Each structure stands twice: as C-alpha cells, then as structure tokens.
C-alpha cells in the first residue's frame, strides 16, 4: 500500500477527495518506534501529529515525588497529541511506545497550513481530534470519579 493509500484509508479521510487525501499524505510519513522510544517529550516543541496504525503508546507525566506516572495507553486508530494544533505548540506529556509501534506522522506546520487553506480538510481532521478529545475528557472524568474506590473513602 502506498503512503497515499494508507492515509486515505484512515477514518479522518472519510468524505475527502483523492486530491485532498493526497495533500494530507504530502504532510505525512510512516514512522516506527521500538518499545521505550519517545514519540513526544514533555516541554519539547509539538511539531508532529501522530496517528497510531499498530502497537501501543503510553502517555506519561513526571510527578514530583511520585516518579513517572502512566496516565493512559493508546492504540491503533487513535491520535497521539493535540498540542501541535494550539499555540504555544509545546508537548504537555511524554508519549512513548510500549510495544513495537507503527504510526503515521504528520508534520504539524504544513498540516496546519493545509487545514487553513482547505477548510474541508481542516474540518475532517478537527472532527477526529474533537471526538478524540471528548472521549479522553470523558475517560479522565471517570478516572477522577474513582468509581472502583471503596465506599466511604478513597484508599
């Protein structure tokens, strides 16, 4: 499968023309990560938007006094990172592969320019990003609720 076909087969390309998928593919490359390798590093410039094709990625945060805490794991058909979309374009968390991981890596600057230039592409990418965000916020709220905690107090 060519890179263009691979990009076109992802769900954010649904409804886009061949030409538009081609323009998206022009911002993309396929990148592989070995377990332990970083996709994103906290505080580093957020210059790439990753889309997981295979494998598993963990989102991790350094907590003073508690070490490195994994907040969630992500898998195929999921977006990693959205800091590339909003200023100041800095990563908030670490993202690293926990298994051999294959991704589509979109260069953020040309992707943002394409989204500005062609609002249909912008809307398609945003739809996926917003649904990812809303799913993560919902999960995060459930995690905060601590639904499995013993009644009458948290451990």
């Amino acid at each position: 499968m060519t890179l263009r076909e691979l990009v076109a087969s992802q769900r954010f390309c649904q409804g886009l023309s061949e030409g538009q998928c081609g323009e998206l593919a022009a911002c993309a490359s396929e990148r592989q990560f070995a377990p332990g390798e970083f996709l994103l590093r906290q505080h580093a410039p957020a210059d790439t938007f990753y889309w997981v094709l295979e494998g598993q990625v963990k989102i991790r945060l350094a907590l003073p006094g508690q070490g490195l805490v994994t907040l969630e794991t992500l898998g195929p058909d999921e977006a990693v990172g959205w800091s590339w979309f909003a200023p100041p374009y800095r990563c908030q968390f670490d993202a690293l592969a926990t298994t051999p991981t294959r991704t589509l890596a979109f260069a953020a600057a040309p992707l943002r320019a394409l989204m500005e230039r062609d609002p249909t592409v912008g809307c398609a990418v945003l739809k996926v990003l917003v649904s990812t965000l809303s799913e993560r916020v919902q999960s995060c709220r459930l995690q905060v609720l601590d639904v499995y905690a013993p009644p009458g107090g948290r451990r």
Partner: protein
Amino acid sequence: MSAPAEPTLPAPYRIVGRRQDSADVFTWTVEPLGEPALTFLPGQFNMLYAYGIGEVPVSISSAAAGEPLLHTIRAVGSVTRPMAALPVGTVIGRRGPYGSAWPLAEAEGGDLLIVAGGLGLAPLRPAILGALARRAQFGRLCLLYGTRGPADVLFADQLAAWRARGDLELRVTVDRATPDWTGEVGVVTRLIARADVDPARTTALVCGPEIMMRFAGEALLRRGVPATAIHLSLERNMKCAVGYCGHCQLGPHFICRDGPVLAWPRLAGLLDVAEL
C-alpha cells in the same frame, strides 16, 4: 432450578474454603449441609446470611456446572466486613438462587462482548465459563476488564489461563497504574471502540459500578451494538429478594425479581437519575 419450599428461609451452608483476592475482596467456597447441590443460571444471586449479623445479596461466581459454589465478596459495610472475618468451617445461611440470568443462549451464533468493571468480574465469571464451555457456539469472544489498580485485579490466575487459550480476546486495563504495570491504562469503556467484534451480531454483557455501566452502554450503542443486545446487571439494596417488600425498586422494576440482569431499553432514563 431449585425452588425453596419457603422462599425466605435460609438453608445451612458451610464455608469450606476462603481465598483473599485483594485487600478487601475474598471468595468463599460453600457447601450445603444436607440439601443437594444448587442449580442456578449464570448471573443469578443468593442471599447469604451471617447468623446474628445480617443478610446480603451476593452473585454466584462459580461455573453453573463442575465447580463448588463460590461467592466473591467485597467487605464494604456492616454485614460484609464481619463476613470477611468468619473462619473456614463457619455455617452460614443461603437462600436462592434469585433473579434473571445473562442471556447466553440468545447470544449463541453471534459474538459475545463482556465488559467488567472492578468486582463486576465476579458475576460475569459464570457467563464467561459458560461461553467457554460452549465455545464453538459463539463467534468472537471478547472480555474487557477494567479495575482500579494492579493490586485490584481479580482472578489473576484465571485471567492468565483464559489468555493462554487463544480463543478469547482479553484486555485488562487499570485506572491508576503503578510503575511496574506494563498493561493498558485508562477506563474500560474506552476499549469498547477497539474490541474485535462485529457490532451488529454482538451481545454485550456489562457489570460494574453503575456509572461505568452507563458509559459502557453508551459506548456500545455508539459502536453499533443494538440496544436490545446490551445487558447490564444492576444492584439495589434488598430485603426479601422475592418481590414482596419493594426495597430493591428501580423505576418500574424490582431488581430482585425483574433483574439483576436487564436489557438496556428497560433501563432507559433510569441510570442518570440521582435519587433512584
């Protein structure tokens, strides 16, 4: 099904085994004193009576055939905490089995997606064992299990054995990881979108804290699982367990009699009302 002559009269059972599953969860193996072995359906529950302390509803967590009777109990309050301290050999009272069952026969011929949260794995265990015993009758079989942290994962040996079979997709996730946890992290409902099943021919069985079940139900609907094929197991405070007293009422349902397993359409609007 064994129907007790006097439905609210407990029969004596002896605790013949006790396993500590996590800090506050334990499993009893119980045996009847005198009465024949119990027949029940996966998903049903018993009322367990610690003499002089009190009586609580507890799901049956053993296989419907081929295992002694098991109950997996979390020590949360005035009855279950003293129960946790009862030694092996103690005689308790048991009545039941009560309530509706997981619709395993209806699910045959299609895929089965089981979503368990925390202690919710216990009432689902008989259904999982039932499906595995008739594995050829089902398409894909997928178990998604989420719990609080690595120390709260129940039935770890059993999970390892299920994973080793290779004919069941098993994914275990925790809400809060410890540094040594190498598995998935995040709420179990998020795994629904990625489960390897054909939604249109899937039956979903869901058990866990009510808020988790509500979000799981919504995620299943988004995935395309028909509402009528989504089944949840509900809990309410119970007294009689036989539909007399009304303690267990949820909207138009008595959970002891109409439930605990109910299909999603029967719960419409009932899972997000604060007072129910």
